[in-house]
């Protein structure tokens, strides 16, 4: 790391002596810029997908119900049977029958208050807390039919579960994109610096002819590419981050879906993007320079 920092300070003579490397240096900067911007997008997508999946998962945890509708003399037995069945079903964390007061509160918007619920043949509700995966709906329905014919499984999570799957998938894909971006950046910087070094083979042999050490030659190239990558990636990441800042937020309601913009300390992760780009560039260039110095022959 100290070597990395020393490098950024540079060697005054080497800098003037090695040619400006023109297009390849620009190419590195631009690559770093574009890749950093894309990395920030992918990172933000990963974070957002992760947040979505987390939030929806926790919402799922208490979402489904079983209604038991049976003749008054049967209903208590069936509720007990259904509870027993539910509690031994894999994918269900807990099951609990609502008492009359709770059920009344639940129905109030629909049928108003003041109804003699206990006198009416109103179905009884069992609230279930499921695991994230949830139970096998078809198997559960079959089992309930056998043990409590009046019980009906109502999977409120049905439409949310695929959303979690989708969020997970989005997280997976944006994670893969992130890995691709990192790998591609490393490969591109390697190739760009190799191209620069190969194009400068004569410069290298000439410098050797007049007694320049490896460190001197490699340093000049490495520094240039690392700086380009750092600056390019810094601008790219900042640009993309700014774009996220200025997209208006979803507002309070958005709490449910969560915004696309990074939140809290996720912003810190974005700041890591240019740093990682610079370190990647440093390692890639240093290796390319070492290779070039070993390959390019004396003349």
């Amino acid at each position, binding site marked *: 790391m100290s070597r990395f920092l020393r490098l950024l300070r540079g060697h005054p003579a080497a800098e003037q002596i090695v040619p400006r490397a023109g297009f390849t240096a620009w190419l590195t900067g631009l690559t770093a810029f574009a890749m950093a911007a894309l990395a920030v997008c992918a990172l933000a997508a990963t974070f957002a997908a992760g947040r979505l999946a987390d939030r929806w998962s926790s919402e799922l945890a208490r979402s489904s119900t079983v209604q038991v509708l049976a003749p008054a003399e049967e209903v208590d037995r069936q509720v007990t049977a259904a509870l027993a069945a539910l509690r031994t079903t894999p994918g269900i964390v807990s099951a609990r029958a609502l008492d009359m007061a709770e059920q009344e509160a639940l129905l109030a918007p629909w049928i108003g208050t003041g109804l003699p619920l206990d006198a009416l043949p109103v179905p009884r509700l069992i609230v279930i807390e499921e695991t994230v995966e949830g139970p096998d709906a078809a198997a559960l329905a079959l089992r309930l039919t056998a043990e409590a014919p009046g019980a009906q499984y109502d999977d409120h999570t049905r439409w949310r579960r695929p959303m979690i799957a989708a969020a997970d998938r989005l997280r997976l894909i944006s994670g893969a994109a992130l890995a691709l971006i990192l790998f591609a950046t490393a490969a591109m910087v390697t190739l760009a610096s190799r191209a620069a070094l190969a194009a400068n083979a004569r410069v290298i042999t000439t*410098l050797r002819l007049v*007694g320049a050490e*490896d460190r001197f030659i490699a340093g000049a190239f490495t520094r240039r590419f690392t700086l380009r990558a750092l600056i390019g990636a810094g601008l790219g990441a900042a640009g993309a981050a700014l774009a996220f800042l200025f997209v208006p937020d979803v507002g309070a309601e958005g709490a449910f879906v969560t915004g696309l913009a990074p939140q809290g300390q996720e912003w810190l992760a974005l700041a890591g993007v240019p740093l990682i780009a610079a370190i990647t560039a440093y390692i890639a260039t240093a290796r390319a320079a070492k290779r070039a110095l070993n390959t390019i022959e004396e003349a």
Partner: protein
Amino acid sequence: MIEFSGTRFSYGQDTILSDLNLSITPGSFHFLTGPSGAGKTTFLKLCYMALTPTGGGLTVFGKEAAMLTRDDIARFRRKIGVMHQNCQFLDHLSVEDNIALPLRVQDKFTESRATDLADLMDWVGLSHRAAALPPELSGGERQRAALARAVMISPDVIIADEPTGNLDWDMAQRVLTLLVELNRMGKAVLIATHDLNIIRSVKGQVNARVLRLKSGQLQLAGSDL
């Protein structure tokens, strides 16, 4: 300073030099002749460690050449002024900066050196082209610039490959006078050339030995020169 003892060299299968024995000592002056393709440049490259012998011994400044790392070689090069046959320059730096290059890579370029540089440029007749880029030089100007760079660090050994190939007679004499002068100051000089007239003109001034490369062997040329 440079000791060949039974040194051999071959590019792959092609043996270029076999069983060389020679000692280059401070203050010595050697000419190296031989037909085109005889191996003169190859011999010089062995001297400045651009090539490593494929057999036999070669010691440079007391160290076995085969044992040296690249950075050792870089440091030894600072005591050897090399004028390459192809006159390698950095095309993006001015002629002046190119000539000062050996000092710059050592971070040793100072004010006093700058006067030396101006004098040197004047001597080889390049003062008016100091700011030009190497590709803008004529063939002969490039050779003179290469020689100037070789002597800039006042090295212990000066190695020049065909230093007068593109120079007219007067300019060639001027350049040789510089080398003779440096030799009198105790530097070893080693020049590869195919131009016997050049050799003859120097023989009167210093005690130069003329070596001839023939079928990979080094011979001392007779008094026919």
